[in-house]
C-alpha cells in the first residue's frame, strides 16, 4: 500500500505538531483558493461538517474512554462488588495490593514471560525475515507458511499448547526424545510453564516477520552492495548496516510486544484457568491480567480490580518511557540530523 508518499514539503503550517495536524494536500502544496470573507463564512460551515464526521469518535471517546477512565480511577478507591453501592475506602485497595502475595507473584510471572517473549520474538522474526529476503521468488510462499499460524484463534493456540507440550507423550517431548533429550513437564512443572508458553507463542510470530521483511526490503541495495565491495562479510554487513537501517522497525516491535506481553491473557487462561477450576500448576501461569480479570469478573472485587488496572497502566507507561529514552541512542531514523 502506498499511503504517505505524496505529502508535499511545506504543506503543514508551522508551529503545529506536524504529524497530527495534517490534511489532504494539493499536489503542489499550494492552496487552491485565496482566503476571502466568503471563504471565512464557509469555514464555519466547514467546521460543523468536520465535527459531523468525527462525531462517532467524539461520542465514543466520551462514553467508552473518558468516562471509564475517570470512573475506574474512582472505583479503585472503593470497595465495589458490582451490585451494592460502592463504599469509598481511600487508598485501601492500593495498600492491600502492595501486600497481596498473588499480585507480586503475578507481576513476577508477567515480567519473566515478557522478558523471554520480547527478545525471542524479535530474534526469531529477524532470522525468518532475513531468510525470506534471500529466498527470491519463493519468498511469498514461505511468508504465507510463517504467517498462517497467526490466524489461529488464541483459544485454539492454548488448546494446542496443552496437547503438544504435554509432558507425557506430547509431540514436542517426543521430538526432543528423538534427539536423546528428555523433555520437561512443560504444562505441569512450574519452572517450565512460562518457557513453554513463550515457545508456543513463537508459532504466532507471523506479523513480526512481515514487518521486518518489509523493513529489510526498504534498506537501499546500494548500501549493502557497496559494503560487500569494500570487503564486509555477512556479519559486518548485518550488524553495521542492516540492523541500524531497520532499527525503527525493531524498536516498534520491542514496544508493541512489550505492551502485548504485559497483557498476555488468552492462551494461559485457556490452558490453566476457567470454570473447570484452576489446575494445580496455575500459580506459575497466573499472569497479571488473568489475576485482574478473575478479581473483577469471577470474585467481583471490582474496586480492587480497578486499582490493579491502574498499577498495570503505570507499569506499562514507565517501561515504555524507558524504552523510548533508550531508543534515542539506539534507533536510527533516516533524515535525522545528529
Amino acid at each position, binding site marked *: *500500500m*502506498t*499511503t*504517505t508518499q505524496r*505529502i508535499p514539503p511545506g504543506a503543514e503550517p508551522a508551529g*503545529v505538531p506536524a504529524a497530527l*495536524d495534517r*490534511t*489532504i*494536500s*494539493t499536489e503542489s502544496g499550494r492552496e487552491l483558493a485565496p482566503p476571502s470573507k466568503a471563504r471565512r463564512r464557509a*469555514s464555519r460551515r466547514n*467546521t460543523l*461538517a*468536520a*465535527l459531523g*464526521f*468525527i462525531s*462517532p*469518535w467524539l461520542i*465514543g471517546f466520551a*462514553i467508552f474512554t473518558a468516562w*471509564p477512565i475517570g*470512573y*475506574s480511577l474512582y472505583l479503585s478507591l472503593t470497595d465495589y462488588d458490582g451490585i451494592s453501592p460502592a463504599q469509598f475506602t481511600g487508598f485501601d485497595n492500593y495498600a492491600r495490593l502492595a501486600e497481596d502475595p498473588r499480585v507480586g507473584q503475578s507481576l513476577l510471572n508477567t515480567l519473566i514471560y515478557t522478558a523471554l517473549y520480547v527478545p525471542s520474538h524479535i530474534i526469531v522474526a529477524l532470522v525468518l525475515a532475513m*531468510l525470506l529476503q534471500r*529466498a527470491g521468488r519463493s519468498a511469498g510462499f514461505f511468508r504465507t*507458511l510463517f*504467517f498462517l499460524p497467526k*490466524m*489461529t*484463534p*488464541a*483459544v*485454539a493456540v492454548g488448546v*494446542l499448547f496443552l*496437547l*503438544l507440550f504435554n509432558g507425557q*507423550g506430547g*509431540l514436542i517431548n*517426543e521430538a526432543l526424545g528423538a534427539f536423546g533429550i528428555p523433555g520437561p513437564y512443560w504444562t505441569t512443572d512450574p519452572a517450565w510453564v512460562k518457557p513453554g508458553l513463550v515457545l508456543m507463542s513463537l*508459532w504466532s510470530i507471523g*506479523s513480526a516477520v512481515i*514487518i521486518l521483511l*518489509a523493513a529489510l526490503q526498504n534498506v537501499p541495495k546500494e548500501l549493502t*552492495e557497496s559494503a560487500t*565491495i569494500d570487503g564486509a562479510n555477512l556479519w559486518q554487513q548485518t550488524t553495521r548496516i542492516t540492523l541500524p537501517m531497520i532499527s525503527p*522497525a525493531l524498536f516498534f*516491535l520491542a514496544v508493541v510486544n512489550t505492551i502485548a506481553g*504485559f*497483557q498476555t*491473557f488468552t492462551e494461559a487462561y485457556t490452558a490453566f484457568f*476457567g470454570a*473447570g477450576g484452576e*489446575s494445580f500448576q496455575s500459580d506459575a501461569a497466573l499472569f497479571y*491480567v488473568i489475576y485482574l480479570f478473575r478479581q473483577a469478573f469471577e470474585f467481583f472485587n471490582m474496586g480492587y480490580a480497578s486499582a490493579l*488496572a*491502574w498499577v*498495570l*497502566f503505570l507499569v506499562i507507561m514507565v517501561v515504555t518511557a524507558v524504552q523510548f529514552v533508550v531508543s534515542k541512542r539506539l534507533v536510527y531514523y533516516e533524515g535525522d540530523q545528529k
Partner: protein
Amino acid sequence: MTAHAARPLPAGSTTGIRHDAAADAHADVARAPRQRNHRRRKQIGRIVNRAVLVLLGLVFMYPFAWLISASFKPRGEVFDNRLIPETFTPQNYIDVWAEVPLAVWLMNTVIVTALAAVTVAMSSAMVAWGFAYFRFKGRGVLFGFVLATMMLPGAVTMIPTFLIWNALGMTGTLVPLWAGNLFGSAFYVFLLRQFFLGLPREVFEAARIDGAGNFRLFWSIALPLAKPAFIIALLFEAQAAWTDLMTPLIYLRDSETFTIPRGLKALVDQFGFGGNWNWEIIITASVITTLPMIILFFVGQRYFVDGIATTGMKG
C-alpha cells in the same frame, strides 16, 4: 560500478571490467576461477537458504497437520502423534455437532464478526475523513487524543464499560461484543487517515466545484478511493472479533449466546479439566474454529500483508 572496476566484483556482475593497462593476461587467468568459485558459493547459499526455509516451513505447518490428523482419529488414538491416523474416521465431525451447540456458536460468531467489522470500518472511515479533509481549530489536539487512546491498556476501561452495558441490560446478549465499534477505533482511524492523506486534494476540490456536498464527497469519492485501507480494516477487525475470548468471557453466560472461542473454552473446561476427557471433540472444534480464519487469510492475503507491513512502517 566502473569506479570499483579494479577490485573483486560482486557476484553476478561478470562484465564491467574495463581494459586497464595493468590488467594483464596474468590477472585475467587468476580471476576466472575465482568468479566460478564465487558463483558456486552463491549457489550453495541458495540451496542452504531453501533447505532451511523448507525445514522451518514444516515446523510451522506441523501443528496444523497434527491437529487435523488428530481430528480424524478415534478417542483412543488422539494422542499417538501419528501424522497419518491409524484408524481414519470422520466420526468426530459428526459427533461434535451433536455433543455441543456448535452450529449456534458458529452463527453467533458470524453475526458478531460481520457487525463488528462493518461498523468499525464505516465509522472509522468517517472519522478518518473528518480528520484528513477538513481544516478546523483543535484538529491536531483531537487527533492526538485519538492516538493516545491506542496506548491505554484495555484493563483500565474494562470494568466501567461492563457497568455501562450492564446498566443498559445488554449483558448476556451479543450487543456489547460489537456495538462499541459504532464509534470507530483509534487504530483504524489512524490507518484510514494515512490513506486519505495520500490522495491528491485536487480530486476533491474538483468534485466540490461540480456541486458535490460533504456527504457525496465522502461516500461517492473518498470512500471508493480508500477501498484498500477499508478492506484492511474490515479484515483485521473480522479476525479480532472472530478470535476474541475476553469480551465473550465478560458478557456471555448462557451456552446459546456463546461465540465459538467462548464455546471452545467451555469445552476445555468441561471435557478437558472437567474429567470427561473428550479431547477429540475439543480438537475437532478447534479445527472448525480455525478454518474460517485460514480461508479469510487466503481471500485477503494481499490486504493482510500490506496492512501489517504499513503498521510497522508507521512505528
